């Protein structure tokens, strides 16, 4: 019973869906952490203890103090087969070329990292010229910088620009200094690399090392050393994973959605044939099985095609993801087994899922329908369908509210996606109910082209509300996704930017320029109030999780209080934040002034701090406040993120100055840019797919309308009139879909706005990116008109009575 022509649209829909799923899962499986080149020669690496759970997963591990590290190094180098145990120290050091950070390096995290010279052996780095650094002021740099041995070079460190002399060159990023210098700049150690004797078994050495380390660290070998990749890479990779997971989920959803409406549509057109089958003796079960088997065959073959296309597409997309910044530059596509298996299964599974409800309806076709007109109108929707639709809409609204109140922007984006899915599915399920009233509302504009055409258009849409709704569904999907996702992202970032700007009481803000942070000397040059963030680990055994990482901000209390408009002190006084053991905590810590607060600093030393004041959670952009000097003492490499200044000044080297609104708008610019790209990607996937589905259903519909149109023509309509009729019909359907989709999106956006307003504590403007909306609706309209007018035009070239009748 399988007909190639009839299955073509379902085939195309499944194939495209599986292509997307296959590409996304292949990329997803390829995104595994890479062992950094710097540690390639260290077959066994001991990593300091992992930090406890936190909102941000990309915090570095809790470092060993210099003495603890020295003790471990001593014991590890005594193990059999270990040639050397090298503490790997990493700190901020950025060589300046011609007085500015090198433009080529700005994107690479390891380009502005410094290490002790002994670390070079962990990556097998060899001098290509000159000598190793032996004393303070000597440095080995990357050959790519174009410096010569003996040349002076300025290196930006956390303190400020420092004069160095190049003693040697290597083929690798970053700078290397004498080990003692490195130990002073980075007292805390987070990894110890073991260089093994030739032929030694890493696993045996690892076993022995575990005995030495005990619970004070993790011993890693082989691919597991990938966790040592720079946190920035890990973060990028994580964002990429989110993007890919969401894309795969969306692709799956849109595919099931589009394919099921395609199936529903094809089966609706085959009612007469199904009725005939029932009349000559097919049971309901047989009809259902037949429909299911057809779907399975279409799904399996389309899935195979999709898999091949997806596999071919994956490397191209992979390169794109790296360029855009969703994957680190080390990313390569690997053809793993599981994505192939998943994609192979996806085709049939999608098809069978998609055909499920349509096949139930097909099984209920009554034999008599073979004898009646094809477009029998049923009740718009059944009770089960109404209940499902309502439930889906409710879920969608709940999720939208969740989106708006989620703490992290990226979590919110995920929620948003599921919210839109639920809303769209709900709206589609309920659409047939609204089609009738909507068409009646739209009556006057449609009637204008001419009495007969208006009547026919309206009549068609009204008597076959299910059919109309089925054709409008992909438009609904496309428009709702585009409007809701883009509107949500725009509204959210605008709201946050407004909130940020309101919080700051300063004229201008100095931020790093092509550097990860500002040095102390740069801060001093500005004369403003600076934030010096560092990560500390809370070690209080009474408050799990162990070693919870926290962001501590090093500040000068008066300056900070003056620049911060939202600072609200609940208990104690900020003025007491002066001693080396003082700390200000937020209300959620549940502590009172004078209570102890033990932490481990970045140098690995434990200090028992004392609470001097408590502020509200929203008062500070971090977890703790400590005196700036305390941060500098424990973290020689800490960099200043932001400086608030009163008047405009000339920014120092490696910095830029912005006014407050510009700063607020761009504070998360990198992140916002990624999210916006992500949004466009999702819109692209859904709109592209939706548009194809629109064309698909309308082509099908045109084929089904052939007999009708021929009749209308025989009744005296001119060709022009018929073309007009078809154009008006498809425009009406796009209009219905766009209105419904827009309504769904609007409901979602309103709940997002309500949630945001509560969170930010101020009214929030609804931002709708109209160009995106106009583009999407225009695309649907264009495709809809084309895909119904072209087949009609071809049909009309024949004389009205002479074309074959497709039963």
């Amino acid at each position, binding site marked *: *019973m*399988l*007909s190639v022509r*009839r299955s073509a649209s379902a085939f195309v829909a499944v194939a495209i869906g599986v292509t997307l799923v296959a590409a996304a899962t292949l990329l997803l499986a390829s995104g595994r952490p890479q062992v950094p080149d710097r540690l390639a020669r260290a077959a066994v690496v001991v990593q300091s203890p992992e930090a406890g759970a936190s909102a941000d997963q990309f915090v570095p591990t809790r470092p060993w103090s210099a003495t603890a590290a020295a003790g471990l190094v001593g014991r590890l180098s005594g193990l059999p087969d270990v040639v050397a145990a090298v503490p790997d120290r990493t700190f901020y050091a950025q060589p300046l070329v011609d007085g500015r950070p090198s433009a080529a390096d700005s994107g690479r995290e390891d380009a502005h990292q410094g290490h002790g010279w002994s670390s070079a052996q962990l990556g097998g780095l060899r001098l290509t010229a000159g000598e190793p650094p032996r004393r303070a002021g000597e440095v080995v740099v990357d050959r790519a910088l174009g410096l010569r041995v003996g040349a002076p070079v300025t290196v930006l460190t956390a303190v400020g620009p420092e004069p160095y002399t190049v003693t040697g060159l290597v083929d690798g990023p970053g700078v290397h200094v004498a080990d003692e210098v490195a130990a002073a700049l980075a007292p805390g150690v987070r990894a110890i690399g073991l260089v093994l004797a030739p032929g030694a078994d890493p696993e045996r050495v690892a076993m022995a090392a575990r005995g030495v380390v005990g619970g004070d660290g993790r011993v890693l070998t082989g691919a597991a050393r990938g966790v040592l990749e720079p946190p920035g890479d890990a973060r990028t990779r994580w964002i990429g994973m989110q993007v890919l997971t969401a894309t795969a989920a969306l692709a799956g959803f849109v595919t099931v959605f589009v394919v099921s409406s395609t199936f529903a549509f094809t089966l609706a057109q085959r009612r*007469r*044939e199904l009725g*005939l*089958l*029932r*009349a*000559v*003796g*097919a*049971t*309901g*079960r*047989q009809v259902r099985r037949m429909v299911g088997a057809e779907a399975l065959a279409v799904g399996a073959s389309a899935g195979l095609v999709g898999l091949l296309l997806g596999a071919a597409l994956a490397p191209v997309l992979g390169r794109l993801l790296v360029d855009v910044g969703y994957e680190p530059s080390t990313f390569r596509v690997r053809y793993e087994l599981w994505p192939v298996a998943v994609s192979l299964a996806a085709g049939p599974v999608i098809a069978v899922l998609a055909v499920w409800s349509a096949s139930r309806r097909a099984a209920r076709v*009554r*034999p*008599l329908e*073979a*004898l009646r007109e094809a477009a029998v109108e049923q009740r718009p929707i059944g009770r089960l369908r109404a209940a499902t639709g309502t439930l889906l809409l409710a879920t969608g609204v709940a999720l939208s509210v969740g989106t708006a109140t989620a703490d992290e922007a990226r979590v919110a984006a995920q929620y948003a996606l599921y919210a839109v899915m639920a809303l769209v599915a709900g709206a589609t399920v309920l659409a047939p109910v609204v089609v009738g009233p909507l068409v009646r509302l739209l009556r006057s504009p449609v009637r204008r082209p001419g009495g007969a055409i208006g009547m026919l258009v309206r009549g068609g849409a009204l008597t076959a509300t299910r059919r109309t709704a089925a054709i409008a569904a992909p438009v609904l999907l496309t428009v709702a996704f585009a409007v809701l996702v883009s509107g949500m992202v725009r509204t959210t970032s605008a709201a946050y930017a407004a909130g940020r700007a309101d919080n700051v009481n300063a004229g201008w803000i100095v931020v790093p320029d092509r550097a990860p942070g500002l040095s102390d000397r740069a801060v001093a040059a500005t004369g403003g109030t600076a934030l010096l963030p560092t990560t500390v680990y809370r070690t209080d055994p009474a408050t799990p999780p162990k070693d919870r990482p926290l962001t501590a901000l090093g500040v000068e209390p008066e300056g900070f209080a003056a620049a911060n408009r939202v600072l609200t002190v609940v208990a104690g006084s900020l003025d007491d934040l002066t001693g080396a053991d003082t700390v200000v905590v937020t209300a959620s810590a549940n502590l009172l002034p004078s209570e102890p607060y033990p932490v481990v600093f970045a140098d690995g030393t434990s200090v028992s701090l004392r609470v001097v004041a408590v502020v509200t959670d929203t008062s500070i952009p971090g977890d703790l406040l400590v005196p700036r000097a305390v941060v500098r003492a424990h973290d020689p490499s800490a960099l200043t993120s932001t400086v608030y200044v009163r008047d405009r000044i000339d920014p120092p080297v490696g910095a830029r100055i912005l006014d407050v609104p510009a700063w607020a708008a761009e504070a998360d610019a990198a992140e916002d840019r990624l999210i916006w790209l992500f949004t466009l990607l999702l819109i692209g996937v859904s709109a592209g797919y939706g548009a194809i589905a629109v064309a698909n259903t309308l082509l099908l519909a045109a084929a089904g309308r052939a007999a009708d149109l021929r009749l209308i023509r025989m009744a005296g309509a001119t060709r022009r009139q018929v073309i007009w009729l078809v154009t008006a019909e498809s425009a009406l359907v796009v209009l219905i879909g766009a209105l419904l989709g827009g309504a769904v999106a609007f409901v979602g956006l309103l709940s997002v706005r309500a949630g945001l307003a509560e969170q930010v504590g101020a009214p929030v403007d609804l931002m709708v990116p109209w160009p995106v909306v106009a583009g999407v609706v225009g695309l649907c309209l264009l495709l809809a008109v084309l895909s119904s007018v072209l087949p009609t035009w071809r049909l009309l070239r024949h004389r009205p009575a002479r074309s*074959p*009748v*497709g*039963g």
Partner: protein
Amino acid sequence: MTTDTVTVTGLRAVYGTGTRRVTALDGVTTSFASGTFTAVMGPSGSGKSTLLHCAAGLDRPTEGSVTIDGTRLDDLDEDELTRLRRDRIGFVFQAFNLVSTLTAAQNVELPSRLARRRPPAGDVTAALDAVGLADRAGHRPSELSGGEQQRVAVARALITRPAVVFADEPTGALDSASSRQVLRLLRALVDDHGQTVVMVTHDPAAAAYADRVLLLADGRVVDELTGGITAAAVAARIAEREIVAESSC
């Protein structure tokens, strides 16, 4: 000899409610003896198709019962009814008789296939041969003329040897030559195979092929002709009834 293949008693069929209420059948009791050819006639809207649908188990009457080959249809569930249709009943409709994606031969063997029997290839060919279409076995409905499509439907009704074949205006869309061919085939079902045929028609010439003519008006059986049926006799009887109907208004 006079066993009845199909018996209907007190059939009433009512559609719609309120002002849109239509009584399509208003108490029809009759039977169709096995090995006979009955023509059902009557004005448009008189309930002919409804009678056929109810008698064939395609539709359930509002009241009354139908018995086919000794089986009461009201006792059957949907699947049992389907199986009964598959095994005991054949259909020829006015149009849309064939599944458009299947060839003529496949359409013929469809009921057997649905019953999970594969008819011997010879049977299919023989059935198509009997309707004069042996050489068109591999053609799809879109490649056949209306009359040829009707004949394929008759072949389909031949192959499972159903107890009764229902035909609703099988010649309504055909020219007189094609009509004669189809009618002769239906006649042959009765004469050569002892099957029962019930046919709805508007054409007195078609009715002349039947052994008996049932006249319906307003959902009731109003007249019946048996023996020596000719087109002229049927036409005369219908004209008579129309005069009676008009004068009674």
